[in-house]
């Protein structure tokens, strides 16, 4: 194979030089869309709080993701020059995104709905794993207890540090998750079954034998 001997062949095919004007236009568009997505999120909160309407979560998600996608397409086509590049590189990019989409899609197909399907069983569900040691108090409660014990807990603390509006709107967005153990969305009556021997959300009551558990059909869990 002979080495290339010419000094250079200038701008060979495939080497497209994008003009600064194009680059600046794209930058301006990107900045515009950035402000738009923030604006959309704020506007949505404002609408929800001012008119006391519930805006479904998916609208928020769809708007944000769509704008992000438009921005990505701009970056990929012009800054990364896929528009002028070999189609092979576009193919690589598209296949990669497709693979990621399969990854997300099929995982969500399984896990996305399972917790809601089985929520009625939550009363008994035992969070296994031993990341926190033997006690079963949620880590958020532990943190609060610690702060209370240290005397640094402020009961009037604003829970929503940065978004003033959110504390109002959250009520609209949130379908509050039923307390563990409440029968709110039980599909069938609870039989008086507890699982003896399981640690967890069953209230620690020292002096009950198994024999009288069957009478107490609605056992309330420890409500931390």
């Amino acid at each position, binding site marked *: 194979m002979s080495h290339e001997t010419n000094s250079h062949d200038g701008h060979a095919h495939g080497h497209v030089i994008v003009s600064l004007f194009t680059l600046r236009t794209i930058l301006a568009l990107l900045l515009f869309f950035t402000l738009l997505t923030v604006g959309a999120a704020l506007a949505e909160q404002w609408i929800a709080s001012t008119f006391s309407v519930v805006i479904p979560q998916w609208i928020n998600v769809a708007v944000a993701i769509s704008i992000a996608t438009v921005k990505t397409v701009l970056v990929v086509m012009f800054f990364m020059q896929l528009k002028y590049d070999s189609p092979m590189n576009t193919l690589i990019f598209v296949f990669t995104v497709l693979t990621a989409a399969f990854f997300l899609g099929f995982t969500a197909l399984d896990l996305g709905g399972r917790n809601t399907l089985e929520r009625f069983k939550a009363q008994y569900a035992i969070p296994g794993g031993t*990341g926190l040691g033997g006690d079963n108090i949620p880590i958020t409660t532990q943190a609060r207890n610690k702060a209370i014990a240290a005397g640094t807990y402020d009961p009037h603390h604003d829970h929503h540090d940065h978004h003033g509006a959110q504390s109002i709107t959250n009520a609209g967005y949130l379908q509050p998750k039923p307390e563990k153990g409440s029968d709110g969305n039980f599909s069938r009556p609870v039989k008086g079954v507890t699982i003896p021997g399981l640690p967890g959300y069953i209230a620690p009551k020292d002096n009950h034998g198994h024999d009288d558990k069957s009478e107490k059909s609605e056992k309330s869990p420890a409500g931390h």
Partner: protein
Amino acid sequence: MATIGDIHKSGLPHHGHAHGHDHHGSYLERKGGMIVTIWDWMTTVDHKKIGVMYLFAILFMFFLGGVAALVVRTELLQPNVATVAASGSVTYSGNLIGHAFGQGENIAKSNEFYNRAMTLHGVIMVFLVIVPSVPASLGNFLLPLMLGAKDVAFPRLNLASWYVYLLGSIFAIISIVQGGVDTGWTFYTPYSTTTDAAYYNVVWMVTAAFILGFSSIFTGLNFVVTVHKLRAPGMGWFDMPLFVWGIYGAAIIQVLATPVIGITLLLLIFERLFHIGIFDPRMGGDPVLFQHFFWFYSHPVVYVMILPGMAVINEMIATGARKPIFGYRAVAFSTLAIAGISFIVWGHHLFTSEGEVAAVVFSALTFLVAIPSAVKVFNWISTLYKGSISMATWNLYALAFLWLFTIGGLTGLFLGSLAVDLHLHDTYFVVAHFHYVMMGGTIIAFIGAIHFWWPKMFGKMYNEFWARIAFFLVFIGFNATFFPQFVMGSQGMPRRYANYVDVFQPYHFASTIGSYILALGFFLHLFVFLHSLAAGRKAGPNPWGSLTLEWTNASSPPIEHNFDHEPVVTHGPYDYDNVIPPQTAPGEFVLPKPAAVAIKH
């Protein structure tokens, strides 16, 4: 159509010519003293040297993993039997290896020892042996040669991948030296994040797998670009040897799937070290999410293992039968189909843990993968038709591959079928199935391929007689080891058991004896190879009479820059009907004169 004359014009290095190299020495030629030579190998960017270094590293790791397998099989020779003395003290017998390592008196310790050996076997064989086996060693060596290129696209990245592989191996060995891990090679959470097996060992081992992923990515990325950009003049996509197609398909999967195991293992390390909660159900995390993450990589990687195995089979079958591969395009497209489908079937590893909808969808998709695999097998068998079938060791391995892979593939039907899988999941049936595919497929193809390309790589012939004896030992040992496991599995023997109920003992016994025969066969192969290196006869450039570029246009072993002149492709890789392959075997492999050649011109 090309004639014999064309080939000579295109530069077949003749026996004499190859050794009369004017200024181009063999790539194996020493550059100076010992230190200079070692430094030369350590800093080389020559794909052939990197491939050879990979080959020896992989074979060493195969030895380590094999020893772990023998430990596992020996431990399972008999069930553990406890004898309770009148004083109340308990003694255990039956756990032979446990006794040998001083752990025989305590059932928990003995079981833990088994679990570590089992994990060691899995981790080493998957991450350090089978995934890099064919691509990193033979792929590195052969891909540029087959394409008529001087090197892979990014030689320094190639060297980097080798060093990353070494680094990963070192991490794995650190973990092993410190006592190993007992998580199983799948590292399922929350077991792997909470097991009391030496705390940092798990982190070492997971980090090793994480690092090895990068080695895999580098190799894959390199190969994809090489195949796209560095084909010799005149070589279109469908003029490439099918070996290249197989490696290409595997490389695509390596590039697209491996990053996901990277992030998975990174999160697992975080979880183990810091308990960030992503896989910890107590903090709202989800252990089944880990399984999805893990198998999103680990199922496609099954095809990273088997596609290169199939790739070498193409070359061996075609040369061995001296026939064009039947339905070249079907085989090439089935490679891509397997690579594509591999990304959407991972859920069949989770039939017992995932939701109903996902299970049904994944089951349906799983059956799709059977089609391209079946097409390949049919095409290979058809290739034998009216051929001239060689009985050399490497072709025996290719035929054995057909036998073993067919069993492995067909038994996959049981596991893809949901109702049956609920019974067979996590039993020895699964163990037998994936050993028939992974070992009977990839490793058998790999061992055969080493024989096939041995003369090209080292310029020496091996002893055919003893190699065939070793082959029969391996083939018989393999079937004796793993066939009983199918029966054991369908009867209900779960996998990863250190101990078992008595009824399974005959099968375990047969399996263990089989594994000893298998080991014997592999050791015999080792001696055959060592003997060849020390005292093998010199090999000509094309002892088997093949038509791909590395045989027709390069000497054995190849010169440093592969080819004297840049090869120009004038015939297809399997154009046996029209071209008499130049052949330089010393004696026993005389080729026929195809009548067709005379007729055609």
